[in-house]
């Protein structure tokens, strides 16, 4: 980093720190902790207030192994004790992830080749918690009168998911068709939206770093909005096909006031896939 850039960055931090200190003491203190809005029936509103714009700015979470809350409720990333911009340490660097042996091997393989075969690079959608870790804006649209909630994602592949809030169970047996996003049913536990998801196919990774999963994956998501500008996301990853016990990941998703969704069609001109070769140098697409 050049010294000019360093000075600029340092100045930005000083200004930000000053602003934070001022905001905590000054007259805008009440504004900085504006409570989450509610719908007419008192349910937390996880989306926009009528008359205002805004989207959730989904962060780029590359490695869920750093997002496991400790006894203090904070993750290594939130404590600042680990960085995704460092090297790739593979499974041995993540003692809190309960890999089964094959999952450990696949994860190390994905680490060694820098996630060369990431399905998102093929313009396939993220599934499970990675929906909340792929950095494009997202909106949550509640329709209590229809007993359903939509989550609309600009990114990944311009996709949406529907969460059934009408009390229905998951389909059983062959009625449960494995899909990228799975089958989501939700309910409110006080102010927490709890979403239970099953029925995933095996075409996605849990994250960019390449934590694998199987079609036995069962995810329990918890969404809370502690303030107007923060969505807390937590996901229990229960996959006995890949992990010896369930593990939990969590992070915050900031609100971007004034933001709106735009279009993103990943498949348009995906040159990465056209020139991707396998470990033997052969094209991944097309005949040999």
């Amino acid at each position, binding site marked *: 980093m050049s010294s000019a850039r360093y000075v600029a960055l340092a100045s*930005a931090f000083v*200004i*930000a720190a*000053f*602003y934070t200190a*001022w905001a905590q003491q000054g007259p805008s203190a009440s504004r900085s902790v504006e409570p989450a809005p509610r719908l007419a029936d008192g349910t937390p509103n996880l989306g926009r207030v009528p008359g205002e714009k805004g989207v959730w*700015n*989904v962060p*780029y979470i*590359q490695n869920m192994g750093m997002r496991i809350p400790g006894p203090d409720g904070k993750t290594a990333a939130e404590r600042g004790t680990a960085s*995704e*911009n460092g090297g790739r340490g593979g499974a041995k660097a993540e003692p809190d992830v309960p890999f089964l042996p094959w999952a450990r091997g696949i994860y190390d393989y994905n680490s060694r*080749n*820098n*996630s*060369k075969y*990431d399905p*998102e*690079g093929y*313009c396939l959608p993220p599934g499970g918690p990675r929906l909340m870790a*792929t*950095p*494009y*804006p997202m909106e949550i649209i509640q329709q209590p009168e229809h007993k359903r909630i939509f989550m609309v994602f*600009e*990114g990944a592949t311009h996709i949406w998911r529907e969460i059934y809030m009408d009390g229905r169970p998951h389909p059983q047996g062959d009625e449960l068709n494995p899909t990228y996003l799975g089958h989501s049913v939700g309910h409110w536990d006080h102010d927490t939206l709890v979403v239970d998801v099953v029925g995933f196919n095996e075409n996605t990774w849990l994250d*960019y770093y390449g934590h694998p999963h199987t079609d036995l994956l069962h995810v329990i998501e918890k969404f809370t909005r502690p303030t107007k500008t923060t969505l807390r996301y937590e996901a229990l990853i229960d996959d006995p096909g890949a992990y010896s016990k369930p593990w939990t990941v969590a992070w915050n998703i*900031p609100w*971007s006031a004034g*933001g709106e969704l*735009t*279009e*993103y*069609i*990943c*498949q*348009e*001109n*995906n*040159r*990465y896939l056209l020139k991707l070769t396998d470990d033997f140098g052969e094209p991944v697409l097309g005949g040999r």
Partner: protein
Amino acid sequence: MRTKLLVAAAAITTLLSTAPVAAHHSFAAEFDASKPFKLTGVVTKVEWQNPHTIFSLDITDEQTKKVTNWSFEMGSPNGLMRNGWTRNTLKIGDVVTVEGSLARDGSPYGNAQAVVLASTGKRLFAASSRTDAQ
């Protein structure tokens, strides 16, 4: 003083909160962050497309005068527009300076992280998939 600081802080906050990176394929699989470049040339082509906008420059080697056509990958149009771009920001014939990371395979290809237009001096972030680029 307080107003100025607030304006600066607000500007920084806005920049950070409205400039998500594009994350499509693995940055590290294709590009080498330890091979930075800064190149100046003349725009020959602009493909304003998903998942990456790609533009090409004719770059003249100062010593040999040999001209090589390079291509550079940026983010997708949605990410670029949040960083102040439009489809007409780069035009054929414009002189621009690009900073970024070189392709691992040694081809005249790079991941652009910032672009400066010679005509205006304006520096625009390229919505790179490299996470620490901004």
